């Protein structure tokens, strides 16, 4: 057994002992409280929570230009009138189910960036997502995801498996990175190996043939390349399993989260933040926004789920010092067609709004609402590039030159106070 393995095993036993000790203890015990106090004193690292609304959110039903004649003319079944919205000003209002977010906005903790997109927008879900996930027109062909590039540029020395965490099933390309792959979990409670098969013996195995006198040779070139990345995932799983379960089990949320997937995911995000795992970017997805038919009912309930989940998270964090160090960015791959289709729904469109939330955000309206008359192939034309939003966060929040991540310079927005 190598020395590294010994020390690993020792560390693991220590962790396991510690965890079981804490697990058997009620949170009301003085020790747990003391631990809580200690953890409240050290600063939290700044983090970003990315929420993807998959399928293409109908921006016109989210930030509604109720006073625009063009809107009234184009929409019937999905149209929201003044009484249906929570007004932001004389022209626009938020969907009436976004009550919690409306409050965040009024309290100056929410930036709404209108008309966001990019030049010559793509209406395919998959190609459009590639653009959003890489920050580049060429999509995957351009290289790693933008969060992966950010990790490389900003935290290359913070080499730990919880640097970027995706909560949910399918991992988005935005967090794709060979050097800083995201940890992914669906449920902290089962984020572990069961059984007695000594998986730790496989820990620390790097490239195939690395500690062998006889190199494997070209015959296994494909296998060994695949093995190298799988082995690093196994190492990451080992290193993150206990810390994530511990953080999730010990966390006591200060508010009640709604019982939807995003709510559950955001609850876990709050737990990981407070568990001080050093995570810089969290990623989550919410599905169901591809509303080609019967949009009104389903979009209404999507807005409700989104609102209850996000506002629970914001409320929870507002009661903690971590609130100052956390941003939430909400985006979707495209907005939807201005004109409705025949199925009381809408087809794929172009520009849409983005949200940025947090107590460090300078709330308000940014960008420019696109014209509902002067359309781009029947769609809203983009007035603000989404990379201006990414860039502002990279530069002003993470203090990293944004062109190092996005490949070129974009004009930045004063989103952070």
């Amino acid at each position, binding site marked *: *057994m190598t020395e590294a393995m010994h020390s690993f095993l020792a560390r693991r036993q220590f962790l396991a002992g510690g*965890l*079981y000790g804490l*697990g*058997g203890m009620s949170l009301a015990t003085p020790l747990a409280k003391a631990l809580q106090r200690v953890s409240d004193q050290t600063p939290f690292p700044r983090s970003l929570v990315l929420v993807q609304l*998959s399928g293409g959110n109908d921006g016109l039903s989210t930030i509604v230009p109720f006073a625009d004649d063009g809107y009234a003319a184009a929409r019937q079944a999905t149209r929201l009138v003044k009484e249906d919205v929570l007004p932001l000003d004389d022209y626009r209002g938020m969907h009436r189910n976004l009550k919690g977010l409306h409050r965040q906005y009024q309290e100056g903790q929410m930036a709404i960036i209108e008309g966001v997109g990019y030049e010559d927008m793509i*209406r*395919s*879900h998959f190609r459009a997502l590639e653009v959003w996930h890489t920050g580049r027109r060429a999509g995957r062909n351009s290289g790693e995801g933008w969060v992966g590039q950010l990790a490389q540029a900003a935290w290359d020395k913070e080499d730990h*498996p919880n640097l970027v965490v995706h909560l949910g099933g*399918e*991992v988005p390309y935005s967090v794709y990175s060979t050097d800083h792959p995201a*940890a*992914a979990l*669906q*449920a902290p409670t*089962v984020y*572990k*190996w*069961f*059984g007695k*098969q*000594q998986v730790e013996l*496989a820990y620390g*195995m790097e490239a*195939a*043939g690395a500690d*062998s006198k*006889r190199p494997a040779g*070209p015959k296994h*070139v*494909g*296998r060994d*390349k695949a*093995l190298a990345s*799988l082995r690093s*995932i*196994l190492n990451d*799983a080992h290193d993150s*399993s206990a810390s994530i*379960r511990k953080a999730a*089990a010990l966390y006591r949320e200060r508010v009640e989260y709604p*019982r939807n997937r995003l709510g*559950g995911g955001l609850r876990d995000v709050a737990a990981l933040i407070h568990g001080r795992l050093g995570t810089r970017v969290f990623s989550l997805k919410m*599905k*169901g*926004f*591809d*509303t*080609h*038919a*019967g949009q009104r*009912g*389903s979009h209404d*309930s999507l807005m409700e*789920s989104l609102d209850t989940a996000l506002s629970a998270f914001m409320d929870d964090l507002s009661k903690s010092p971590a609130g100052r160090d956390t941003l939430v960015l909400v985006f979707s791959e495209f907005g939807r067609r201005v004109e409705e*289709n*025949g*199925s009381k*729904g809408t087809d794929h469109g172009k520009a849409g709004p983005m949200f940025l939330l947090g107590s460090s955000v300078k709330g308000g309206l940014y960008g420019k609402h696109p014209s509902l008359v002067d359309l781009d192939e029947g769609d809203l034309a983009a007035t603000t590039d989404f990379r201006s939003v990414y860039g502002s966060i990279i530069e002003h929040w993470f203090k990293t030159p944004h062109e190092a991540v996005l490949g070129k310079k974009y004009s930045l927005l004063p989103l952070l106070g």
Partner: protein
Amino acid sequence: MYYPFHLALLALLVASPVLSQSADRLEDKGTLDLTVLKPKPDSSWDARAVEHLFNRAGFGAHNLDVRRGLRTGQEMLVRQLIQGEDDGPRFVTRPVEPNMELLKGGDDEERSQERNRLRNDNRRQGQEFLNWWVNRMLAGQSPLRERMTLFWHGFFTSDSTKVRLVELMIAQNELLREHALGNFGEMLHAIVRDPAMLIYLDNISNKKDSPNENLARELMELFTLGEGNYSEEDIREVARALTGYGIDRKREFMVNPRTHDFGSKTILGVEGRHDGRDVVDILLAQPACARWVAGSVITYLEGVEPATDRLEHYAEFLRTADYELAPMLEKLLLDPEFYRDEIVGARVSSPIDYLVGICRRLGADVRGEIIVRGAGLLGMSLFEPPNVKGWNEGPAWITTATLMNRANLAGVLLGTIEPGEMQVDPLDDMELTEDEMASMNGLGPEFPLDEAMMGGGEMMGTSAEVEKEKKARNQGNLMAKVARVIGSGGHHPRISLGARLFRSGASTDREIVEFMCSSLLAIDTPLETRRMLVAALRTDREAQGIEPGNLVKKNAAAEEVLRRLAHLILSLPEAQLG
């Protein structure tokens, strides 16, 4: 109708430069009776190649399959795979008929009872069908047909949570199975008229007055051409051509003349009063279409995208063969490039591959339901692909979480993890009560059937997606549920690793590791891994007080050591490849 074998051969003789050589050899022997074909004296046809073929064209191989494959020879084996055997019982679909009197005229309780009955019947039938399908993967005699049916399910996706009527999902699956090795053009024509697809991509509400573009867009982007090979104007025109394509009250395909647009359309430069049939013909005539189909099939089976020249070659071949798939598959599976070092053993197995592969290699008799649920837990719910593009194959399957969950499911299959074990976590104080579990759990479609929907009318957009969101709240529950399903049906793995070892003649720790690796893994095992396993086995054996060489003695303690070794092997990165 399955692919007639002599036609395949004819196509080969005519079309393939590579295969016509092998056909020449057949001619030299003066016979087309393939059963007398001797193994090729080519040394490249070794156990590694046989296993690779079974991994990719089937669902993995038992040691005995590999030995048989070596004897059979490459050409014969490939032909057997393509021909397959139409084996086993067919699945008989029971129509789930709503009692409209109750739904429309009954009181609240009667209506709700009827809705529950429909929902439960629907869900049960879906589950039964998926079990039937997985059993064909586990033990059927047409592994390539099932492999390609699975591929087409990810290519021509539909989602039962949106389609809701599971009998339509089953019918679509049978359609894909029928054409899986047949003619792509015929399959595409059928898909455009397939009720499940018409519901899934909203075409049932695509009407002349204001068309719905969903099917039109995906038809070009994902089913035939790929992005960049059509314009937004083409999408609008194709959508017009597909107006009125829907289903009738009997849930069968129909074109509604009142909502179909009979006017002239221009699609990819072709003008005419096109309907869905014309659209498909226009798309099939595009060079991009053959390229898209050939590229998708090759990428799926090889695990990496083909080089441009090679793709062109296959696309040309497919077009010349009039989109017959069997000749292209035969050519591919005999292509030395298919066995190149870059791709052998380098593909990350899908959850279905991982679980079905374990069972096939172990020779274990496992209920299909366990595989279906387990694959769902690992991110591959059959009948519920993540989106219209289907599953993202390859490295994306493995995350920190799925790597651990794969090992956990392998432990359950081996009997080294008690199903109940996974429901209790010493750190888990977020466990839900039984009631909460009962209300939130549930795999498979269990949504109330909308009455309007039953009449073939409009459906509520993506409300199914919203429901899906709600029930997916806690994957921990899902794991517990999978464990319960496994436990409740009494999963007692009837395997004896000791007996298998005994037959193999392996006795020392090193021999045992060699044998177990070659039995359980789909790939060659690296040296350092085997060393690590030998050390692990020795430690465990000594801890149990078992002397060297005594593990083959068939006693319970020895069997437990062997199963823990098997569990460790199946937990390794090596077990995720195939």
